[in-house]
């Protein structure tokens, strides 16, 4: 786009404050019709707030928005939709109890007399949209709660397209998708832009932005630090530097030196022939103290299910999990925890943390009895112990009374790790440890995980980001459709090899 027509959308000097935070501090954004405009920035940089302003879900405190040459007020989600601005949120914004078609047309159902929903018409129209999105197999009458995450994403997209859109905002649309689904997503984006629709694309994955982006706007601390850079020509290190002030995307701590004696300690965790029907089969694995083992695989390959079964949250149909040579009672989280297994779950906000409670109370949750004196909690001891654990992980802010809700994603994860550290666990299971953690904080989290391993902990890691598994783990098990198809030292693998293994022999019929 050399000679620029007037922009479709211009946001200038947008400011927005929440109690205690200045989320947007004068952001500019200019989007042309038919382009893919990428919005980059670390978590907390203001991307989510900006797109909510654009969706009419937040009202800005200051600044102006021009749409097709006219100044507009996006006073509600409906206003934005009527103008042709649709948003696909990262947190799936679907109603599980409604069907696919009902979700697609929620809020603007085809009706007779404005009241009675024309169900058949809605289903036909939804089917057409799903067809256009390359997913005719999704039944419009099916309840959304029964669909996989990837299919739910497609439904969100169908909902965006159900409006007469000129601009679609996609907030990390690829986060829940497998590589081939991402290709499908890119085809859809291409189709949209060739129809003249503008796409604002948010992603943490720089390589995606290279592939489909036209221009890039970078946010940092509520300000746009770069506006409208060419996506293809700007070097990655420049973009990362603008986002973080550093110039590398992943920084991994060093592994034990290659000439160090091989780890011959007795395995602390042994998994033999573990099966869960329909999820995974015959998984064998050994984990020694001081070792980080990674599980790589697609969504649905069984990687998280294996972790949860080892933890006792799911009951295996066959096989055995032993800690220090003693078999665990299958399907019992209590047995697993008593034997020294700890889990940092993928959905840490929902499954691990009491968000409104203090750091201390979150960290001490699994060890409360240790601080009890005849039923009374020795709160001084609780606080001191929690503080020791959080300091060891350099959790910030160094304030044991801060509500966990106010911490960044990386520090929330540290609070979860501190809980297990305090408990003195021997095996740590990490499910997507850096999901929702920004680039800068990741390196620190990696270093913490490696340090814990060096201190003798055994770590089992699951991540959808292959570079993360390869960079952090000592040994990697590659999973495909519930089976371990390859096992090797991490240094012997590269990203392409892993992706090949993961996809190899995918059903084509």
């Amino acid at each position, binding site marked *: 786009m050399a000679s620029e027509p007037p922009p479709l959308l211009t946001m200038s000097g947008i400011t927005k404050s929440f109690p205690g935070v200045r989320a947007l501090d004068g952001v500019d954004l200019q989007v042309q019709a038919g382009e893919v405009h990428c919005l980059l920035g670390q978590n907390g940089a203001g991307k989510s707030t900006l797109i909510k302003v654009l969706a009419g879900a937040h009202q800005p405190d200051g600044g102006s928005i021009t749409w097709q040459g006219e100044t507009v007020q996006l006073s509600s989600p409906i206003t934005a939709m009527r103008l042709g601005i649709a948003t696909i949120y990262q947190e799936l914004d*679907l*109603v599980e109890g409604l069907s696919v078609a009902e979700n697609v047309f929620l809020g603007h159902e085809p009706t007779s007399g404005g009241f009675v929903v024309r169900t058949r018409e809605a289903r036909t129209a939804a089917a057409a949209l799903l067809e256009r999105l390359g997913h005719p*197999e999704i039944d419009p009458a099916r309840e959304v709660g*029964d669909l996989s995450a990837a299919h739910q994403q497609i439904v969100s997209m169908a909902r965006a397209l159900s409006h007469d859109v000129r601009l679609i905002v996609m907030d990390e649309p690829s986060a829940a998708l*497998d590589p081939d689904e991402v290709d499908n997503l890119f085809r859809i984006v291409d189709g949209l832009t060739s129809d003249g629709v503008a796409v604002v694309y948010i992603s943490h994955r720089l390589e995606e932005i290279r592939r489909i982006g036209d221009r890039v706007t970078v946010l940092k601390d509520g300000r746009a630090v770069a506006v409208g850079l060419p996506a293809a020509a700007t070097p990655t290190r420049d973009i990362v530097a603008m986002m973080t002030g550093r110039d590398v995307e992943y920084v991994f701590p060093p592994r034990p030196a290659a000439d160090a004696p091989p780890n011959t300690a007795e395995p602390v965790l042994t998994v033999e022939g573990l099966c869960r029907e329909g999820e995974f089969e015959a998984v064998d694995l050994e984990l020694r103290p001081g070792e980080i083992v990674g599980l790589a695989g697609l*969504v649905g390959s069984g990687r998280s299910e294996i972790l949860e079964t080892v933890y006792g949250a799911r009951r295996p149909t066959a096989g055995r999990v032993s800690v220090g040579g003693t078999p665990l009672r299958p399907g019992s989280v209590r047995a697993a925890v008593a034997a020294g297994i700890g889990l940092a779950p993928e959905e840490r906000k929902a499954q691990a943390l009491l968000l409104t409670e203090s750091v201390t109370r979150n960290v001490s949750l699994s060890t409360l009895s240790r601080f009890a004196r005849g039923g009374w909690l020795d709160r001084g001891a609780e606080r001191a112990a929690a503080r020791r654990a959080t300091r060891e992980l350099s959790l910030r802010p160094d304030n044991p009374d801060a509500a966990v809700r106010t911490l960044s994603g990386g520090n929330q994860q540290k609070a979860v790790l501190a809980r297990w550290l305090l408990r003195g666990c021997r095996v740590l299971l990490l499910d997507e440890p850096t999901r929702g953690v920004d680039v800068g904080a990741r390196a620190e989290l990696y270093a913490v995980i490696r340090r814990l391993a060096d201190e003798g902990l055994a770590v089992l890691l699951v991540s959808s980001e292959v570079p993360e598994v390869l960079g952090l783990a000592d040994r990697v098990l590659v999973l495909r459709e519930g089976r371990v198809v390859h096992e090797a030292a991490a240094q012997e693998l590269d990203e392409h090899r892993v992706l090949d293994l993961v996809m190899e022999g995918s059903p084509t019929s």
Partner: protein
Amino acid sequence: MTQPAPSAQHQGPGKGRADAPASPPSKKQGPGARVLGFRADVRNLSLLGVLVVLVAVGGITEPDAFLDTGNLQLILTQASVIGVVTVGVTFVIIGGGIDLSVGAMVALASVWATTLATQEYGFAGILFTAMIVGLAAGLVNGVLIAYGGLVPFIATLAMLASARGLALQITDGKTQIVTVRSVLDLGLPDSYVLGIPPLVLVFAAVTVAGWFLLNRTTFGRRTVAVGGNAEAARLAGIDVRRQRLYLYLLSGLCCGIAAFMLIVLSGSGQNTNGNLYELDAIAAAIIGGTLLSGGRGTIVGSVLGVLVFTTITNIFALNNLQSDVQQIAKGAIIVAAVLVQRRTLRGGDT
């Protein structure tokens, strides 16, 4: 939900790409079966089964008394009043709320509609007043919850207390006898249509209207959306607060109608009317499969829940079992029904 079964859709082998492992095996439509062209929940079918068993038990233990036409009419009439209340409460619960004040609203509407001043306006005056008082109480609930930010439990608890208090103040604890003939006539066998009491017809009409509203209108969709995922509803452009207000208005209106039905039945208005209706209505909705956390529920299930409850009460009474035993049995049934449902649900889930 009871919705028409999908017409033959794209159920083919799909594109058979690598998304096969990501999506659960193409299980048809969760737990459900086609009945008369409608998809009925397994739980509704099992409730229907329970009802059939109850009727059989009644017919065997008290063959003459239970199956007597008069007794069956009595069961249905008793179910009608609480049933109308339950339809309203079901909407509120599906929409993510709770209404503890229904019994008190019934009491308030029934006494306000039977004061000497109101009775002067005859049939229409009584009916109109009952509905307006119900709507007004619902409006207060709705405004406090939707726009005042009060938790539904608290707001309706406050309404429960104050509406009962107001009802007591109006009556001074006395029973207000109704002298309007046309109102009283509605309760007499002469006005039965083909053997069906008019109040039962009202209940049937409210049920059908409720079913239609929930399953066929934007109002119903929005109710499910607001209860299932309020943020998603807001971002879809739904006015979540207004929808919540409407739900409490609807519940209030149902209470007004139920109050009128109670006036017809008892020939009077009393401040003790509708005692513990909130418990019966909520319990019937829960037994009928409505999720207390919102976002899911059916009118058919709630109505079956009401019928099951009323039939049990009737059988117990015919067998001379006292109300203390009835209460204990009701509690046990609630627990049993929910346990059975959880099992059915888990079996159906992936």
